[in-house]
């Protein structure tokens, strides 16, 4: 079912948790709401679940306006950050609880529970209690309880945040496969941009209760709608250099860089770490700098360069020879730079060359 928020606002006392949220996720879509803590993403999810009432606005699941409905009438399933398993029920009882409420016959219930348990590899623990399970197993039980019912939408509130890094990596992939095979529209809330980039069909970036950008991961990576999105997505995030524009050149004290004429005189030049090169100091179209730190990541090396008061990250081959303190230059790839207006922070010119050749997500890597 497609999901839609229409001008949804939520106020807690004097604080605006969500302001005019307007977004639409097509049927079968994996929508990730991404943002720092307190940005309103969990509020948005709880509103859709019916656990809180919006101050104003409407929400739709498919053609139904669910705004006035109770949670149980919305036909959704939710996975909580804490898993929220029923501690006094066994794994099997936990999973079959939504079916029991819907008065399915015992044979139907058992069949569905067995099927889902098998799908998630928890069929060996059906008789145990949640306290006897590890975090990863509990996570699977919570998932099983959500998918056992075949609801119209899944809502997930940071379901992986309590797992260790390795398990999270593994569950991320499984969750994505599961969502694709069930083809049920999913709203997934996270503060982890890596999860968002790797799993989402669509990412909604939120900050301070406002939607910043709703786009595919590739689009968000290549053309962030504003400075907030640029600095939040990607690891390390997009490099941002402040400067002025004169005669088709972006200028800083450390160097100039040719751009299409920008409308404003004060601009921010943005480029991804993999879309730049380390050059000799004084090379054409480069910014003079000094190597701040060199971090070998195995497959590649991340070089942090001090350009004036700013720092710029550049991904280079792992045979990079530079040392801390070396003088150098940084030359962005002209076809992949973006420009932001300094005052509004909005994107004014996207990458000039086709992102079709290399999907933007190619640059997201685990940097742990």
């Amino acid at each position, binding site marked *: 079912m497609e999901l839609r928020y229409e001008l949804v606002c939520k106020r807690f006392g004097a604080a605006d948790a969500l302001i005019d949220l307007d977004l639409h996720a097509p049927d079968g879509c994996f929508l990730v709401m991404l943002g720092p803590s307190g940005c309103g993403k969990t509020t948005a999810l709880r509103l859709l679940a019916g656990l809180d009432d919006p101050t104003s606005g409407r929400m739709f699941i498919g053609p139904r306006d669910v705004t006035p409905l109770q949670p*149980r009438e919305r036909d959704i399933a939710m996975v909580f950050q804490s898993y929220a398993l029923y501690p006094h029920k066994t794994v099997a009882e936990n999973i079959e609880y939504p079916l029991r409420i819907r008065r399915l016959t015992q044979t139907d219930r058992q069949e569905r529970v067995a099927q889902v348990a098998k799908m998630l590899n928890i069929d060996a623990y059906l008789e145990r209690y949640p306290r006897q399970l590890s975090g990863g197993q509990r996570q699977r039980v919570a998932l099983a309880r959500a998918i056992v019912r075949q609801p119209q939408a899944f809502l997930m509130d940071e379901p992986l945040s309590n797992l260790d890094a390795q398990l999270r990596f593994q569950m991320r992939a499984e969750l994505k496969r599961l969502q694709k095979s069930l083809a049920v529209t999913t709203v997934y809330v996270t503060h982890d941009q890596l999860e968002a980039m790797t799993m989402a069909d669509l990412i909604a970036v939120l900050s301070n209760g406002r939607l910043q950008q709703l786009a595919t991961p590739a689009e968000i990576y290549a053309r962030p709608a504003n400075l907030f999105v640029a600095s939040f997505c990607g690891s390390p995030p997009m490099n941002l250099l402040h400067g002025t524009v004169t005669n088709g050149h972006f200028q800083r004290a450390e160097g100039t860089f040719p751009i299409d004429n920008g409308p404003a005189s004060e601009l921010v030049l943005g480029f991804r770490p993999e879309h730049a090169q380390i050059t000799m100091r004084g090379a054409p179209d480069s910014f003079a700098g000094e190597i701040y730190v060199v971090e070998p990541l195995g497959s590649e090396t991340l070089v942090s360069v001090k350009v004036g008061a700013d720092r710029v990250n550049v991904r280079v081959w792992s045979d990079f020879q530079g040392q801390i303190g070396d003088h150098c230059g940084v030359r962005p790839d002209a076809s992949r730079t973006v420009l932001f207006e300094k005052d509004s922070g909005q994107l004014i010119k996207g990458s000039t060359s086709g992102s079709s050749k290399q999907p933007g997500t190619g640059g997201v890597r685990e940097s742990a």
Partner: protein
Amino acid sequence: MKRRSRRALIYLALVAAQVFALFPFWWMITTSLKHQVEIFGGLEFLPQAPTLDNFAALFDRYNFGPFLANSLLVVAFSVAGSLLLGTPAAYALTKLPTESWLQRQALIVVLLVRMLPAILLVIPFYLVLANYGLLNTRLGLILVYTGLNTGFVIWLMQSFLAEIPRDIEEAALVDGDSRLSALRRIVLPLAAPGLAATAIFSVINIYNDFLIALTMTSTPDAQTIPVGVSTLIGKIQIQWGPMAAAGVVGALPIIVFALIVQRHFVRGLTLGAVK
């Protein structure tokens, strides 16, 4: 060695505390098994010629059967009644914003009745019961005890219910429960230790009450054990034997009840600590 001697000291203190706590109980049991002559005869730790005469006298001559029945009935109904009234109220209070003005005021109002000494409440209660012809009835006692105990239940249950994670209840709502069925199927089972602890405190409070029962009742039709036992203290003579027997019989229901719910009870008392 230092650790061992410290340990020994701790055990010594524990044993002393045990003796201090259990000796009166022991003395009550042995006294109930002694003949009158022996009771006044000196400090014997064990009855020389054990007898059940005191128990027989208690039920045959001193009407203990009706007292016991009154006590059990009154306690059962008032504890059940106050749990039934107080638990939903406590649940509603946990849904108010924590530490909000409203929640605090509501809890203080609830506590107000408990803060007044019972002796202050006795006269108004007496007048009300007299008005409705409920003096010297079990129903009258049940109403008074239920009213007084509900505030206690609200306070205790409010703290137990507040400890149940909100997520779990919300999961039930999303899974298809209404507020009420989530309360019944998820919240209350999780609050069972709290219910047990609250129940046992309530039982002891009401079962032990003397002042209200004494004022509101006048015959064995409604008199409870504490009042009944007090009739054994005559103007001339105190019936120590039957009185000790009454103590033993009277303590039995509480002990049995405590044994039944003790597993929950202990978990209830440590609920906050373990987490």
